[in-house]
């Protein structure tokens, strides 16, 4: 089953912060986050594992609540390059959420 993401879309000014949430009705063994720019392939941002281990992007942080089966991606001091669609991905089967469209304007 597909993880649920919120919000569906976010519009920011450069420098503003945003939080993207992801939840699952099924147990989350790990959560992956990817960003896709228009016309391109998804690109890896982070993996969050049970027990608190994280692997990924230096300038993006995320949290993973195993009990609540939720994850959040924190984008701080947003830059124009952050624009794109953000996907959380549930393991197993590596099922993508529906995505959150983020637009950062000058």
């Amino acid at each position: 089953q597909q993880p649920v993401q919120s919000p569906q879309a976010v519009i920011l000014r450069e420098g503003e912060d945003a939080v993207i949430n992801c939840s699952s009705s099924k147990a989350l063994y790990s959560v992956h986050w990817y960003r896709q720019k228009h016309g391109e392939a998804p690109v890896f941002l982070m993996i969050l594992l049970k027990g608190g281990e994280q692997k990924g992007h230096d300038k993006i942080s995320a949290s993973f609540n195993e009990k609540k089966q939720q994850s959040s991606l924190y984008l701080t001091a947003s830059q124009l390059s952050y624009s794109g669609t953000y996907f959380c991905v549930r393991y197993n089967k590596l099922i993508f959420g529906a995505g959150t469209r983020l637009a950062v304007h000058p």
Partner: protein
Amino acid sequence: EPEVTQTPSHQVTQMGQEVILRCVPISNHLYFYWYRQILGQKVEFLVSFYNNEISEKSEIFDDQFSVERPDGSNFTLKIRSTKLEDSAMYFCAQTRDRGSTGELFFGEGSRLTVL
């Protein structure tokens, strides 16, 4: 950063024709995935493949789809009799480690247009 190569980048075909999409694996990446993305929509899991066998597949991956590594190198997705609704971007992805810990490396995608 490792690169995943997909061919063709774009294919136009007539409904009912067979299509083969290819993916050149990264050395020592053992887990393969195919995803589909209809324009502007979500990324849909099709199938995962490990050790020359399908590990998981979705409801979308019906009898018209098949995957294989025919020569032990390239990883292929075959659509036997294409339908209009098969028009989409198809992404190959690979990981070195199992999915729970392994970063997915995506190819640039193969755009399939069925007329």
